């Protein structure tokens, strides 16, 4: 608060005081008091008045600065009303009491929303856990049927499993950092895991997978990375052309390793390319093919940014799509 702001707030009061003093001075002069005495009285009043106003101003300003610094230091700013001092004057106290009650409703609303979200997530996690049993049972039952039925059923079952896995990761994606375990892994190992998890889909789609130069070590969370690679493989297999080929290669950059997943599928139209990472975006390809949720790449974007992995996409319609994931290697850890 500047002095002029303070002054303009009190203008009415100051004008009243000044006018009254002027009238009193005039009255005293007219009724015979000596000019010197009136002047003396006036000077005393002026001095005291200026002193009190300055003290008031300094106190108000200090109080506002204190409140501003409290607000500044708070992470959850809606807790402001709980952290401020009660106030000296009765007016301040009644004022802060009203704000406290308003703040109370806010804190309650935030807390209720967080609790509802947490309960829903826990429900989803338990659902995923429970559903794995019948899927495993169905897989086992498959073995007892003839080869043709088995092949078809297992294809469908693996699709169910892929969706379940995605649901789980989506539910966890709010706070994936709670589930992070960063360690050193070999890219070839991670890629192999992803391929193995989706081999049914890849085989059914007649996709040929080529890998090159994957003997690189990176620092990342294996589970989340394998999940991301799986999403990329699923996309490549879905939006494929005839004679589909997926090429997974890696190259070393300064302090980083760049992994590329490239396919020769139907590609993404250039006017949709910048939107593929948006939640729920299915685009024209997703509509044409059907069954697209628009969640896969959204999750990849979310997870990659939390893991400090740079995720880029490039695509040409009818030619193919390539995604690059840039991982960190040891030399950069000290900088982080």
């Amino acid at each position, binding site marked *: 608060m500047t002095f002029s702001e303070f002054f303009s707030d009190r203008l009415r009061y100051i004008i009243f005081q000044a006018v009254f003093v002027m009238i009193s001075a005039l009255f005293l002069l007219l009724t015979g008091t000596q000019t010197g005495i009136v002047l003396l009285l006036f000077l005393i009043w002026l001095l005291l008045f200026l002193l009190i106003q300055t003290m008031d101003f300094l106190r108000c300003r200090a109080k506002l600065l204190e409140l501003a610094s*409290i607000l500044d*230091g*708070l*992470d959850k700013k809606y*807790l402001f009303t709980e952290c401020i001092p009660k106030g000296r004057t009765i007016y301040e106290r009644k004022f802060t009491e009203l704000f406290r009650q308003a703040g109370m409703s806010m804190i309650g609303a935030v807390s209720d929303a967080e609790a509802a979200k947490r309960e829903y997530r826990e429900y989803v996690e338990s659902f995923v856990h429970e559903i794995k049993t019948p899927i495993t049972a169905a897989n086992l039952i498959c073995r007892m049927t003839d080869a043709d039925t088995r092949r078809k059923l297992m294809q469908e079952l693996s699709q169910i499993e892929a969706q379940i896995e995605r649901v789980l990761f989506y539910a966890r994606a709010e706070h994936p950092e709670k589930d992070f375990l960063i360690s050193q892994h070999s890219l070839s190992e991670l890629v192999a895991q992803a391929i193995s998890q989706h081999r049914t889909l890849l085989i059914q789609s007649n996709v040929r997978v080529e890998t090159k130069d994957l003997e690189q070590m990176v620092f990342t969370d294996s589970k989340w990375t394998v999940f991301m690679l799986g999403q990329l493989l699923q996309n490549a297999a879905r939006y494929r052309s005839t004679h589909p080929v997926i090429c997974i290669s890696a190259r070393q950059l300064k302090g980083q390793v760049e992994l590329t997943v490239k396919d020769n599928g139907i590609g993404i139209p250039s006017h949709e390319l910048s939107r593929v990472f948006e939640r729920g975006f299915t685009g024209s390809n997703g509509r044409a093919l059907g069954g697209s949720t628009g969640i896969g790449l959204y999750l990849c974007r979310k997870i990659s940014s939390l893991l400090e992995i740079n995720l880029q996409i490039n695509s040409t319609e009818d030619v193919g799509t390539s995604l690059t994931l840039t991982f960190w290697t040891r030399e950069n850890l000290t900088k982080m």
Partner: protein
Amino acid sequence: MLQVKNIEKYYGNKNQVTKALDRVSFDVAAGEFIAIMGASGSGKTTLLNCISTIDTISAGSILLDGVDISGLSDRKLAKFRRERLGFVFQDFNLLDTLTIEENIGLTLSLNHQNPKNVQKQVEKIAHTLGITEILKKFPYQVSGGQKQRAACARAMVAKQSLLLADEPTGALDSKASKNLLEIMTQMNQKMKATILMVTHDAYSASYASRVLFLKDGRLFNELLKGTRPRPTFYHEILDVLAVLGGDISDVI
């Protein structure tokens, strides 16, 4: 008669905010004897302070006798506290300059009762709690156990709805503790007093019909005595405490 719904309490000053209570909810029916247990720092004193209107909550609501106390003004809160709540503290908090009789009668005087009735009511409750002989004595002249019984009398003489006890046996030896807890049980059963006792002593808690456990500001577990004898209940409480953590010294 007491409904605690999703209460939260944040303590904050300049830059540090601590969450003392995290969505605590429970109900207390009239005539129940409840114990709240937890290690130091679990939030049990904060919870008691919030229920007894000494402190305000950050979120949620507390309904006492159907009244939402989180919305009352300071003056109304004081009146509510005076008329409906009784307190028993660990360090007795009797006024040294008044006799036991005057200490007990103080509640009634503060509630603007007719002075003639005050003496009669004091004598009545003193008789129920067995402290008639010490009525004319001063607090420093009587033992800890007698002082605590006087405090109980003071807490119930105005027919308060809820008795709040904060570690009532904390400063008493084992015999006096047993005595006091039996008195409190009597108050609960004969006088139909609703009692909420905060304690970290499993023995005291075993006298309650229901025990709530607090950990890190959250309700961790709840035990009901049911028709079981007290020693069995005591052992069950000890089992929960073993899981809750804290040193053995917290249990004694």
